[in-house]
């Protein structure tokens, strides 16, 4: 059906997310203070960065490092793409 739906989604989520994050960061900067644990919690916007960066690290670890190493083709008999249009 609509094969280009994904771009619409991405755009929407991006815009909404950006606004949300901006508000969130502002509030956090103003209100939040009960940090504990590692020194990094004192870094502003740390959580946002960590969410992005952490996901990137995991993505890279999985897709770039482990994927080529560990991915093997499925049994040829079990391919299924395009079976049901």
């Amino acid at each position, binding site marked *: *059906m*609509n*094969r280009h*739906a*994904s771009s619409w*989604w*991405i755009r929407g*989520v*991006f815009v909404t*997310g950006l606004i*949300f*994050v901006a508000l*969130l*960061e502002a*509030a*956090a900067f103003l*209100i*939040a*203070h*009960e*940090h*504990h*644990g*590692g*020194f*990094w919690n004192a870094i502003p*916007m740390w*959580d*946002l*960065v*960590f*969410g*992005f*960066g*952490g*996901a*990137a*690290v*995991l*993505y890279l*670890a*999985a*897709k770039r490092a*482990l*994927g080529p190493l*560990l*991915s*093997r*083709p*499925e049994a040829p008999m079990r*391919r*299924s*793409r395009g*079976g*049901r*249009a």
Partner: protein
Amino acid sequence: MTPSWEFLIYHPGAYLIAGGLWAGLFPSYAWATSGVFSFGAAAVFVLRRLPNLDFTASVADFHLIWYRGDALSVLFTVVFTVVAGLGLIYGWYRMRRGEAAAAMIYAGCAIATVLAGDWVTFFVFWEGMAIASTALIWLGGTEQSRRAGMRYLLFHAVGGALLFVGILLHLAGGGPIEVAALTGTGPPFWLILTAVAVNAAIPPLHAWLTDAYPEASTAGSVFLSAFTTKTAVYALLRIFPGAEVLVPLGIVMTLYGVVFAILENDVRRLLGYHIVSQVGYMVTGVGLGTPLALAGAAAHAYSHILYKALLFMGAGALIEATGFRRLSDLGGVWRRMRFMTAMYLVGAVSISGWPLFNGFVSKSLIVSAAAEAHAPWTELLLTLAAVGTFLSVGLKLPWFAFFGADRGVAVRKLPSNIPIAMGIAGFLCFAYGVLPFMLYRMLPWEIDYRPFTFDHLSSSLQLLVGTGFLFFLVVRKLTPAEKRTLDVDWLWRGPLRGAVSDAGRALRGLAPAAQEARRWVVTGIDAGLRRAAAGRAAPVAPAALNFRDSIGWTIFFAAAAAAILLVILDRA
């Protein structure tokens, strides 16, 4: 305490096991009835808050504490009962009676395991779970499910064997018969820990899970997702609170699971990796050993059972509706199964730790406990795992399965029991998320923890949003490939299996040799003697005497003996 069988009245597991046996033994239509009755009865006694009593009974000369209703076991009993009921509803039309029977017995055994007060009872139902869940996997009905079930069974048999030896060593060393925290770190400690680690799917002992769970039927995997690993978490909480070795193991689990989940294509296999990951939190919590951490582990197990069941139901609904089980075959079906999509998303946000959902209130207990225990790296890595969880379960899976490019997969209408079960599960995830004290007050450890601080909310949300940014940045690269990821199960599906079957074959290969040797001994003597005797024992020839002849030899020997003896005696 005099042994009695009265406990059977109070034992929710007994109802489920009895119901399962009934369902298995009698014609098909009986399973639903027995399911309702057994689950209902179990639920009644759970709702009556389970008497905090011990019941013992004597079986086979073992005086067993069949039932020990303290707070920890009650917590798990409650959630097990709930999820058993949900699973029965979910599988109402899908399950055939054998499957229902296996599922009920499986659930009953899990409940009985956590209620077991002594090691023998514990072992009994631990093994019972393994058998019943194997049957459940086998009832998936495909060749893959049968093979995976066999591997699963063997893996658990090894685990059970370790547990058996560990218990024997523990008892022989004078340890108490009650299941309690082990003191000392001798062989029993490590044996039992390894056995529990098998069930808890701690890498590298985890691959049975991702191998077998996707191969069960859709309803079967809902049951599977709930009991075995969480019983192991219970066992860790009971037996190994504060065992420091668990912290690194747990952290490894959390990350291992998410990394593999990012690579995974099969829906339920992906979710299976997330069981590994989530149980990692609990393992870490047990290892941290502070009351908050232990409470967090217990609470997270509780939450996890609910949302993971919901996720497996969602995945199952997807598979049932479309017939496909891999992300690369799916996409864009949300319009045709909106409710199911929504409920799946509830599960996804729960597991990802979104505020207002139950994962948030329990996972944060463990992370906070790590922080309070001044284990910042633990905290950091657990947070990293949370990021990965959201990335794969919260974003990748729904994106490629429900949203994303619509591949026009036909979706058939599902019977209403499926949305009902998912609805209840989703509601529970949400309810505990907004009313965390409902969960906290059941915990065996007194905790004073407020999840909904602004700081906590804001950091969680930032984290999730940050992850979301990355996801949409690399979404095309995340497109699941039609590939299979090698995991440690390669070891025993490949070399180890080969080694065992080679050993068997080698021994079998000895058989012809042994048989040949036997034949040589039995008939070879025969044939050899015949050959040897061919001349000597031949029938009489009408010719005159000669030395080839037996009479000739006789006379020769007689004469020779006489001569020799005479010579000897003459000398003497």
